């Protein structure tokens, strides 16, 4: 890691309470939790794109919301641009969050259907008092729209989201973010719901604004191919835990964790030159991950041995910037 760190996360945890119901109270049963994000540590450098990859339900979406404190974490540390986010009060948080933004998966759903494109952008301007006059507001909005290539501006200015294509909608979302000049943006599967034909345009736009505004990204996806296209590093998540993290090409070429291997094997066309051993995974993702002292992947892991069922593996360095959490790292290498 030779770049300046913009985001540093340590031991981040988010547990959700399970509703007990009336009978539960009557029986005085213990409170149970879902470990949605379980003890995750990583950092993101300036202008770096860190991909988070995992199946749906692995906690990546929860994690992204915890990072922005849209959901309060159970414990951990989040240092953003040198500020401890979790120590901030509501008002300070709002001010800092201006520089941490998010682009959502559902392009239509993330736009208020009752608001036109310019209104949506104007809302951002007004929330943060970025302009003193309406004319200035209009100017900022126009700039942002040009930036995200919603041109000619006049054509889109008064359009309601329902009249835009998915790609255009996602551009509005991005415009709304760019207006704020953020330092760090979480892109939560920004292209997964778009037609394949427009995906590349959006990814290029991400790349462009990354360069222009010096933005760091966390790019969340379950799709390795887009991750490979845009990410500098990728992190693999399984049931709330990080299992492997490292430079994109390194991981794709030399996956260490059995889960990573399985993921890569599932997309064979990603790079025909790389030969990855086929790893058969048994079963499905367990629905409710609770308290457990074993390896999370143990029930499905073809390489599992006795220790996996009793102890939880910790991250260990594999190579340069490459870490993985598995007891059988040596064998895997």
């Amino acid at each position, binding site marked *: 890691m030779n770049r300046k760190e913009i985001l540093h996360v340590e031991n981040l945890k988010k547990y959700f309470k399970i509703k007990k119901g009336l009978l539960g109270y009557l029986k005085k049963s213990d409170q149970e939790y879902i470990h949605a994000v379980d003890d995750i540590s990583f950092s993101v450098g300036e202008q770096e794109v860190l991909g988070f990859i995992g199946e749906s339900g692995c906690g990546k979406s929860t994690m992204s919301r915890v990072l922005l404190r849209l959901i309060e974490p159970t414990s951990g540390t989040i240092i953003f641009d040198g500020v401890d986010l979790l120590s901030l009060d509501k008002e300070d948080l709002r001010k800092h969050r201006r520089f941490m933004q998010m682009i*959502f998966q559902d392009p239509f759903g993330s736009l208020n259907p009752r608001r036109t494109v310019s209104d949506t952008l104007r809302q951002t301007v007004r929330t943060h008092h970025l302009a003193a006059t309406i004319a200035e507001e209009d100017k900022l909005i126009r700039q942002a729209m040009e930036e995200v290539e919603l041109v000619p501006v006049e054509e889109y200015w008064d359009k309601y989201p329902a009249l835009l294509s998915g790609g255009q909608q996602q551009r509005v979302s991005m415009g709304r973010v760019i207006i704020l000049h953020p330092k760090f943006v979480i892109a939560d599967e920004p292209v997964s719901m778009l037609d394949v034909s427009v995906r590349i345009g959006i990814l290029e736009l991400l790349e462009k604004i990354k360069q222009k505004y010096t933005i760091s990204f966390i790019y969340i996806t379950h799709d390795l191919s887009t991750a490979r296209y845009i990410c500098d590093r990728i992190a693999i998540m399984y049931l709330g835990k990080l299992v492997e993290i490292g430079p994109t090409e390194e991981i794709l070429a030399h996956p260490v964790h059995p889960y990573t291997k399985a993921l890569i094997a599932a997309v064979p066309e990603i790079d025909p030159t790389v030969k990855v051993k086929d790893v058969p995974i048994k079963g499905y993702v367990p629905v409710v991950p609770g308290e457990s002292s074993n390896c999370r992947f143990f029930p499905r892991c073809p390489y599992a041995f006795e220790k996996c069922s009793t102890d939880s593996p910790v991250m260990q360095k594999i190579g340069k910037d490459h870490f993985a959490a598995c007891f059988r790292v040596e064998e895997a290498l």
Partner: protein
Amino acid sequence: MSNTKAELSINKKRKQKIRNQKIKDFLYLLIDHKMGKIGVGIIVIFLFVALAAPLLRTVSPHQSGNASEILIPPNSQFILGTDDLGRDVWSQVLYGSRVSLLIGFVSALATVVTGTLVGIIAGFYGGILEEVLMRIVDFFMMLPALPLMIVLAAVLGPNIWNIIFVVTLISWPTTARVVRSQVLSLKERPFVEASRCIGAKNSFLMFGEIFPNVVPILFAEAVIMITEAIYAEAVLSFLGLGDPVRMSWGSMLHFAFDSGTMARAPWWVLPPIVSIILLIIGFSFLGTAVSDILKPGYKEKKGL
């Protein structure tokens, strides 16, 4: 970009145009709808009658007549005859529409405002607050409406504003429920999270983001509330709990029923009854039409 002021005014105009177009579309659908047409027709007529009452009336509705003008049947001077004080029934019907419409609109407004506030706050914040608010709503919905209205109207005194208060008190919970269930699904929509992410405060999320999306439902809800308010006023006035200063259709019926001359002077009884029924039918037809139009896909089916 240099001439932003002008551009802005153009924008405003354009937005206005879009909004106008939407209203036009809506009105078109309403008129296109068979019941909507009838409902709107009836309501427009009564609105006109209420506004133009001073022009349409022959004499003041409160001016008593001579001894020879008591309970006389419809004739050229008194289009609908006179009541037991020689007052003109026609003028009373005209002015009665004002009371009904006033109570209808004001109560519906008050109901919708209260119900929306409670519904949005409960649905948005959830947790204990929601639990408490919804318990209150449940509680009010369990109360027998008419008996409660009678008690409150009797306790508070006969006065148009008290009636509005009572009607609102009884009906806001329904709106609160409807709004809350809308909010529950709306607040999960990504655009709320997106707005929060941008830095919007809760108050803005509730009233800037979520509220505009419940407006259509509220419109349908308001129409129903108007019907109920008109109904409620009529019943209370009929039972003698109406505003004694303002002649309403309900109180006309009260006096006619009490006077013991119904059979002798049907011209005194029928006009207020017919007016009440017509106006309520007008609003329920409008309500049916509105809820039809708001159904997903209706607009498209009609080619708009």
